[in-house]
């Protein structure tokens, strides 16, 4: 069996975090899930755990968050070379034309997905990109 996918969930809404985690577990995508209610907390965690073996394979990142939003988080992450290992999926409940173009311009971001979170859509994106078999 392939190595378990390590997943980091970043969202300021605890309900969304819960729902995303449960869907991922329910569909047996992974059990290795870490949840963060703010981008700052996630960034601090990455800073404290720079090892490649603990670095997340996949980050589900909400766009609209107070203080540090999803795009700010990505900008701060760029200084970590370990980021090359991570694939990012951005989430938003209001798809904005500007956001769509910013996502397209970022090589780390696989897709921008609209909330409510559609687990089948996530699985499809991961399969297309060879992250899930």
């Amino acid at each position, binding site marked *: 069996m392939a190595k378990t996918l390590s997943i980091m969930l970043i969202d300021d*809404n605890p*309900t969304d975090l819960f*729902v*995303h985690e449960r869907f991922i577990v329910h569909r047996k995508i992974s059990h290795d899930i870490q949840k963060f209610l703010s981008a700052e907390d996630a960034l601090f965690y990455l800073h404290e755990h720079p090892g490649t073996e603990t670095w997340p394979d996949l980050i589900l990142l909400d766009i609209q968050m107070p203080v540090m939003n999803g795009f700010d988080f990505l900008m701060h992450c760029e200084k970590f070379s370990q980021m090359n290992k991570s694939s990012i999926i951005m989430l938003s409940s209001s798809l904005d*034309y500007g956001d769509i173009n910013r996502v397209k311009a970022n090589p780390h971001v696989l897709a921008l997905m609209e909330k409510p979170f559609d687990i089948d859509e996530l699985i499809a994106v991961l399969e297309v990109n060879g992250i899930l078999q």
Partner: protein
Amino acid sequence: MDEQRIRVLYVDDEENNLLAFRAYFRKKYEVYTAISASEAFRLLESIEMHVIVSDQRMPITSGVEFLETTIARYPDTIRLLITGQSDIETVIEAINRGQVSKYLQKPWDWEKFSLILENCTDLYKAKITLKEKNAQLQKTNDELNRFVYSASHDLRSPLMSVLGMVQLAKTDEAMDVAQEYFEIIESNILKLDMYIKNIIDYYRNSRSMEILDNIDFNYLANDVIAAVKDQNQDVQIEIETEQDEEFVGDIFRLRIILSNLISNAIKYQNPQASIHKVTVSIKSGPKFATISIADNGIGILNEHIENVFKMFFRTYNATNTQGTGIGLYIVKEALEKIGGNISVVSTPLEGTSFKIVIPNKKS
């Protein structure tokens, strides 16, 4: 504005006139005088005048020439010219070149002068009030923009969380008994969300400029259909696209237009019909694209057909409560923005066909 005294500058090469002017008006206005254009410029460097009165006949710089130079720096200031002779050419020049609002003929009587100066003051006040109102309007508009953007996100965000929760609960086998409840909750959430999305679309359409992109109609139509077909899985949707050359248009608005029309065609099906059919045909040419969306649904009564594009118009329809009454209004508004048009033909219980024509913005 009321507390502020009106500042009047009077320019004349005759010292006596300046003194008389000052004596007559100093109680009513804050009076400044200058014996030449160059002295007037010095005053204007540091003090903004509300009304400038100038004699036409002065050595070196004439009244019109002087007034003309004050336009750029003081666009709101009201200019008044005093001409000695009844010289129509000078007056025409004054109005055209010097943007002079009023003129007074020499020799003047003071009462008339006073009246004209009062007119100038009123003009100035009206100009400033208009400017202030405009600035207020601009501010209100900006605030509304921000409000609608944040409301649309803040309203949708918790709704989407609830929807996620409901969808998660539906996957839980232990919740079997409650499945029906979840279906109802879900359909209500989706309806509320449709309202919010419509409001966002309406707002974006009314505010934003056209953004042009290359359009692949086949891809666009399939994409839109994929997003709306869940509303009624029994409907067969056929797409016919003819596109030989490049089409440039506003993809954001086209998406709004197509998704509203196709979604309507799917929603307003005739439950008595044995097959439910929607046909989307697109012909894209060098100048125009013609799109028709036809269904064999419940149709629209003749007396309602005029009203379907009005905001919040809904027909009474016992089998369907899905409509928000804003969709076709947005379609029409969006088409207006991109220079397209729409027509509709419908027969009750046989079906409806919408036809839209949109210009190709290739050149």
